[in-house]
């Protein structure tokens, strides 16, 4: 278990996802249009596919909520755990296929609005995708941010000499 450079990005994304989930939950207690304006771009917000809190529907559907939760957990998990590349790519294709099958089965009418299938497929998708987003964001950090801090530290060390 090795903590690598740019790990704070994983923590940052995890925090961002939890803030989004918290914002969605607390927005049920407010009449502001801002949560709807934000989440309306991310989600269809169909009431029969949302959890309810005190009789008010959340502004995000079950699948989206669990995708965010998967992202949140995955971005912290993959800081510490580096799975094999081929295996995780296969897992990604697998969870995407699973989600597609879930949507298709519901459309065809094999089953109706099942919250647990949406939650499961959404969570797995968020969890697996977070490995790839974390890899890319970390790489961007190392390419973009590190040279700046390197130049800055050299500048300050030359001034103190």
């Amino acid at each position, binding site marked *: 278990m090795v903590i690598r450079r740019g790990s704070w990005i994983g923590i940052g994304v995890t925090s961002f996802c939890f803030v989004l989930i918290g914002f969605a939950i607390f927005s049920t207690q407010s009449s502001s249009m801002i949560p709807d304006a934000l989440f309306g771009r991310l989600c269809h917000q169909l009431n029969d596919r949302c959890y309810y809190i005190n009789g008010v529907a959340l502004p995000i559907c079950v699948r989206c909520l669990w995708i965010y939760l998967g992202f949140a957990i995955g971005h912290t998990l993959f800081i510490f755990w580096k799975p094999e590349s081929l295996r995780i790519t296969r897992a990604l294709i697998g969870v995407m296929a699973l989600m597609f099958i879930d949507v298709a089965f519901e459309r065809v009418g094999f089953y109706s609005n099942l919250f647990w299938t949406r939650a499961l497929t959404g969570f797995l998708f968020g969890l697996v995708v977070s490995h790839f*987003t974390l890899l890319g964001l970390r790489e961007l950090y190392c390419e973009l941010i590190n040279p700046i801090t390197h130049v800055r530290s050299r500048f300050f060390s030359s001034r103190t000499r």
Partner: protein
Amino acid sequence: MSDPDSFRVEPAEKPDDFQAMLIGAALVYFISIIPVLGLTVCCCIPQTLGALLAVYWYTNKYKITISPGKGIVLGILTALLGGIAAYITGFILLKLGFNPMGDMMQGVLEQVIQMAEENTSPEEAEKLREQIERALSGEKTAIQIVIDLVFTVIVNAIGGVIGGSIGAAVFKKAPPAAPAV
């Protein structure tokens, strides 16, 4: 003594990601702008699909494998280009009085207002009615436009990150074989 540079193989064509970006952005634009698709497709799917297409086009055309970071940059730029273009087009169409989404949502929103009138105080229901009517008419204050634009950028960037990173992982091309000497 031989010149080591003479063995260097120059690529036939320098990879240019702008074309891939435009193609992906066109997909984002069309999915976002068509009202029926915009209603059914959600969860950053237009942006994710656009970013995936851009990465696929780029890697397939030049037969290269790109890193997740490069995929994310390509994805974000693609989604932003398509998303902002769609937002501006939608804004102009609303100003011209063309609002098919509003017409489609009219019935649903009438039900929402009716429910609000039954379950909340008359003042709150009236406030909700005003907000919905303003939203349907396309009238927006400067602050609302700024908020809309900020949300558009955030959502498109999220979709671009997801699509770009998935694309970089899935659409891998083996490096070209070394020429036989």
